[in-house]
């Protein structure tokens, strides 16, 4: 079998398994949503739910259909690219999600743009100076930062940069952005807060991967060739750490898409995480399911991408 065909097969296999997982996830999410108790009708009526009002509203939302039928309807729609309409707003779900997803991707993308280089630089430096003061300081600082709750980091940042200094806006509404400068101003605080959360883990994992590579015998051999330290790290150790680093970055980024609810709330940023919370609160199940699918799809896309990067970066796998 030719190398490229083999790699194509390998990658196709990964993708197929991701798609299968996605299907299982849809089943699981639906099952969990049944267990959750309450439905959209109850959520809409809230304090004013009376039995006959409930029954009427349920009928009008087709909530009186049996669960498997609702699931199948939703799944078939999804396969045709139509996730259906929201029970609560009556709007098409695709249209509700699309702009929010774009927002979330923008925020996650900017955060990645900031945190990945920072994390890689610090992680690599710590690995190079492992055991030294710099390494220890980075190690303690990263643990210190992750153990501060993110809402505290975000609030402190707002208090300093928005309330006291008036340098940056406290909110990150997207509408008034018309220049790169504005964009930077608007995103500075949320990106900084998010980066604090993600950077720590990436630093630790990068450091571990580079450390592994640096203690290998090919690095020792390169050192005995007279290769200078910088080249030793960048030219010899780093290529071998790409796989684990890609994995670390993927995991951190997937956390960014799904786990930023606090940041979205504090900076009033309209992303998918808030949509998800809303959808769960209002028991808007088609919306919940679709957003959950997007979360797990993005998780799987990232993890699978990391796998594929690792495969492509490794000549051993590339030219089996």
């Amino acid at each position: 079998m030719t190398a490229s065909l083999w790699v194509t097969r390998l990658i196709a296999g990964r993708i197929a398994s991701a798609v299968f997982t996605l299907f299982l996830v849809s089943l699981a999410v639906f099952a969990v949503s049944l267990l959750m108790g309450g439905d959209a009708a109850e959520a809409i009526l809230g304090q004013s739910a009376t039995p006959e009002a409930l029954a009427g509203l349920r009928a009008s939302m087709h909530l009186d259909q049996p669960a498997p039928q609702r699931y199948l309807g939703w799944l078939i729609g999804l396969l045709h690219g139509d996730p259906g309409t929201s029970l609560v707003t009556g709007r098409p779900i695709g249209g509700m999600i699309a702009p929010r997803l774009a927002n979330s991707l923008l925020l996650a993308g900017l955060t990645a743009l900031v945190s990945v280089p920072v994390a890689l630089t610090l992680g690599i430096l710590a690995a190079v100076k492992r055991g030294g003061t710099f390494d220890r300081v980075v190690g303690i600082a990263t643990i210190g930062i992750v153990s501060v709750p993110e809402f505290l980091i975000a609030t402190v940042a707002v208090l300093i940069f928005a309330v006291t200094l008036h340098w940056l806006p406290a909110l990150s509404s997207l509408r008034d952005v018309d220049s790169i400068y504005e964009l930077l101003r608007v995103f500075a605080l949320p990106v900084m807060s998010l980066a604090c959360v993600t950077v720590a883990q990436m630093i630790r994992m990068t450091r571990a991967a580079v450390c592994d590579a640096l203690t290998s015998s090919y690095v020792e051999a390169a050192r005995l060739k007279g290769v200078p330290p910088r080249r030793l790290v960048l030219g010899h150790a780093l290529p071998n750490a790409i796989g684990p680093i890609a994995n670390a970055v993927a995991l951190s980024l997937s956390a960014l898409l799904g786990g930023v609810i606090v940041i979205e709330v504090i900076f009033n940023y309209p992303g998918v995480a808030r949509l998800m919370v809303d959808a769960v609160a209002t028991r808007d199940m088609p919306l919940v399911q679709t957003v959950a699918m997007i979360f797990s799809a993005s998780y799987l896309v990232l993890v699978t991408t990391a796998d594929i990067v690792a495969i492509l970066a490794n000549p051993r796998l590339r030219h089996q």
Partner: protein
Amino acid sequence: GLPVARTPIKGGRLRVATATSSTADTLDPAKQGIATDYCRGAMFYDGLTVIDEHSRPQMALAEAIETRDAREWTIKLRPGVRFHDGTALTARDVVYSLRRHLDPAVGSKARVFAQQMTEVRAIGTDQVRITLSGPNADLPIILAIPHFLIVRADTTDFRLANGTGPFRCREFDPGIRSVGVRNDDYWGTHAHLGEVEIFSIADDSARVNALMSGDIDLINEINPRIINQLKRAGFGVLESPSGGYTDLVIRVDQGHGRHPDFVTAMKLLMNRETMRDAIFRGYAKIANDQPIPPSSPYFNPTVPKRPFDPERAGFLFRKAGLAGATIPIVTSTAANKSDDIAVVMQDAARHAGIKFDIRRVPADGYWTSSWMKVPVGFGNVNARPTPDIIFTQFFSSTAPWNESGWKDARFDRLLLLARGDTDESRRRQIYGEMQQMVHDHSGIGIPLFVSSLDAYGPKVRGLRPMPGAGLMGYRFASHVWLDGA
């Protein structure tokens, strides 16, 4: 000093952040449920009547409302009113707007009120006849509740609002934001503001920080602890004393609540002063386990104040055979500050020889799965414009939200009597007696009437407290202006 604008300035854009909003945000008056919805409703729609600062109904889209027996009402519509799309307001629109609440598929929150209206009928294009199932002198006030805002006939799509209100809806994105622009063809007093943007920031401190950083102009539901800080920094605080309360709900039809001594003892455990000072920092009025606030004309001052008396409570618990027992109490952030109220009571309970086991449950689903279902829990009631409404909804035997399950035939009779009576002094007397009954017998403990607290930026002018709710009873947009300075 700085020149202070005495006369309102036209134009400008006001940015408002409320505490809650979600994809369930709606422009359908029937479905409105949170402050953000009510604010939007008040901007884009009008009701037939509106409640003024003395809790009296004033005519809005109705020019006159007449009745002889408080049962059959004739409403004459104001001429020359136009919807935002340019069509004229007719009786058909009013009939549609009132009758749609009866359709369960609409999911109206005012269905119980609409069900009183056995007939709603257009008489020509400018008159509507409403027939009630029984006499109710409060109909003009009922018509003022936000769910009865008037929409154009046959409207089913509420993606944008087509009302008659002082603002037109330019943008509405549920859970994100809405924008209203001034309606220059408005039939009544024109608003000052050119534009209002409403969105929400759920996090309390983020909301305050956004205000203090100058990003927004007006916020609601502020934490009373930061009022001094806000004032020092030059921000305004609007306190609106209201009849809203968070109440301890003891089911008298199940568990320990069946024992009247237990109920009384629980009420005696409420250290109302501490609650007022510690939890609300003074921005609340002490209440007396009945729902009519002192600001109401029907308030009965002769009901004896219930003291904080852990000793007597302890005696009553022992009498009920509960010495040393552990009482589970369900709280939730859904019932505003119920956690803190429960904690303060919990501390007092130790002195009464009883243990409270506080079970905090998620706000999500609280109203359907916990409220009125657990033996001891909490409820949260917004101010209601009339005693009739609050007694009907929360205390009569057939009330949909009879929180404590307390039923009293005499109370029900008195309610009907007062409702059909147009004589104010007789009503005051009847309502007074009903307050005493609730205080004595129902399973509801009302510690405090809580003030709404809003805060606003240095440029915002024209805010004043209105009864019932903060943000000027949700109608700030029609009154506020921005100082151009």
